[in-house]
């Protein structure tokens, strides 16, 4: 494999990790949507590059879904939902930005430490790609636990899911990648519709077990 192929794939996957960090320090909801659109666009580039390198035309479909659905439709739809429902524009954090970023750095180090030794026998492109993908997944999880707003939890989940698509595209010759990305798109569409229809306002935005326990009088 020419080293340029590898360098570009490496650059794009590294770019996704970088954009994941950018998601972590956003403090306005609309800024978060824009950065997420960027995240999805970089994913589309990554997947398209993998499709070219692996000579796997079906991956172009996945790249197209990422570009049209996640980089354009979802951010626009979420933007409208926030305007229509009057959801607060400021992101409330459970943990401050500084500690969150430090935790994020630790998670990236962790995923490199975990992935590189166990994939010693895989080809070098898969190895690096997988380490980056796990970083993106863990950063997405970190975002879900450190944010209180339902909308930013959803963005965290979607960035996590972008990491999974990155991993699936990087696994050379994996079947069903298109089907899986379609299934995920259905999931995301339902989440967005869910926010809108269920009118999940700030009142419902916690995944805290105790909130519901209290609501049902099960806790004093």
């Amino acid at each position, binding site marked *: 494999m020419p080293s340029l192929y590898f360098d570009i794939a490496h650059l794009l996957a590294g770019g996704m990790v970088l954009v994941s960090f950018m998601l972590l320090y956003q403090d306005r909801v609309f800024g978060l949507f824009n950065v997420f659109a960027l995240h999805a666009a970089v994913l589309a580039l990554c997947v398209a590059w993998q499709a070219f390198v692996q000579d796997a035309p079906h991956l172009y479909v996945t790249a197209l879904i990422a570009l049209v659905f996640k980089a354009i439709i979802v951010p626009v739809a979420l933007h409208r939902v926030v305007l229509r429902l009057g959801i607060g524009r400021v992101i409330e954090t459970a943990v401050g930005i500084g500690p969150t970023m430090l935790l994020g750095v630790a998670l990236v180090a962790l995923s490199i430490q975990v992935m590189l030794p*166990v994939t010693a026998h895989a080809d070098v492109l898969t190895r690096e790609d997988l380490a980056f993908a796990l970083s993106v997944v863990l950063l997405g999880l970190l975002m879900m636990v450190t944010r209180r707003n339902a909308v930013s939890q959803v963005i965290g989940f979607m960035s996590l899911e972008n990491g*999974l698509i990155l991993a699936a595209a990087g*696994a*050379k*010759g994996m079947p*069903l990648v298109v089907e*899986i990305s379609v299934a995920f798109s259905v999931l995301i569409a*339902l989440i967005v519709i869910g926010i809108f229809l269920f009118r999940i306002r700030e009142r*419902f935005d916690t995944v805290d077990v105790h909130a*519901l326990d209290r609501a049902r009088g099960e806790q004093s």
Partner: protein
Amino acid sequence: MSGDTAVLLVLLVPAVAAAILALVPEHRLSTRLNVAACVLTFAGALVLLEQRPTPGPFLLIDDVNVVFVVLTTFVALSASVFSASYIDHELAIGRLTPTYLRFYHAMYQLLMFGMNLALVANNIGLMWVAIEIATLTTVLMVGIYRTPAALEAAWKYFILGSVGIALALFGTILVYLAARPVVGEGLDAMSWTVLATASARFDPALLNLAFVFLLIGYGTKVGLAPLHAWLPDAHAEGPTPISAVLSGLLLNVALYAVLRFKLLLAGNPGAVAAGPLLITMGLSSLIFASFMLYRRRDIKRFFAYSSIEHMGIIAFAFGMGGPVANFAGLLHMTMHSLTKSAIFFAVGHIAQVKGTQKIAEIRGLTASHPLLGWSLVIGVVAIAGMPPFGIFLSEFLVVSSTFARQPVLAVPLVFGLLIGFGALMLRLHGVAFGQPTGPAHPDKASYLPILVHFTLVLIAGIWLPAPLVQWFQAVARGLG
């Protein structure tokens, strides 16, 4: 009918029925169609017992999953009968509108499709997609009443379930990566039949890492502590037929996925043993849920915690492994599905006649509603593990096989069982006996599903037919 037709029946009937039921406006017709579709699916599953189709790249029927398929389709059938009478009442009091009912029935069949597909899939990617379908449909059903509590429960289930499912996908990709150097690219590297024969040559480190993700991902759906937070709320806020299907079936389907991956690890000499992980999670679920039972004030949440307790016992038994413990785990899973779904059938009607789910407001049921009250008494006695019911037999097998092999582990196991037993008896006494209080609407319940389930559990407790024992023994050997 050949095996190939039967497996198509199991998959296509729910899929087609979902499409038809989405269009049928009249609710009496649609409840009947729902039951009819379940009958057909169950018939297909019974044929699979005798006729096995040849494993293809996508579908597979073997000794292990046929147990799950038959159990799933059977409980789905009786839950659909219960659902018919439950839904009548919900319509009458206006908690559900005809539009929502169409949606409800379509989702019910789609859920069956998802669960059956997950069970018969021969491809780890396809199984993942199927479990996602099942998760999404249950999320929508849990939120169907649209009260704030129901929406919050659905949202919580949605977020936790999605994260679990995302992690499971990462594990699935890692399994593919482990298999690719050995069996080559493409579908082969994702199909159970190929993976099972070739797993000895996979990279053990990659397989270990994959299993961690799969256990956390699918373990969330099994409801093992500490990943259970969605389960009580989802059970309490959704329609009761869905609580019965969740507890009786969907938890099993997720457990089936974990067991399949455990088999891959068992086939690889270099991989860690998956058993101790399952034993730890199983025991912590059992003990945690048993203590939590004492603090419940909502009757559906109470039995949801009891489900966590029993999934803990089942995970523990499969974690112990070996023919006896696997047999006990399999038997316990079957008995728990039958008993717990019957309890939810009774609880659904009880909540309807009393107009509340609060344990404190339900008193003296055996006096005010003898049939419902005694059904609940029988159910609780059975689920608590008292003879002569089947759960006594399976719990006895789990405990005795643990004593024989790892006596130290038997101590926390028996401790957890006794704590749970105490909570069940304590609550049962208040709910079933004493002076009746509160409103007492006459009940128009359908007792047939409850009766059939309890009869089966009772028969299993007294006398297990020899063919059933041989069948389960064969499966237990297959599970390693």
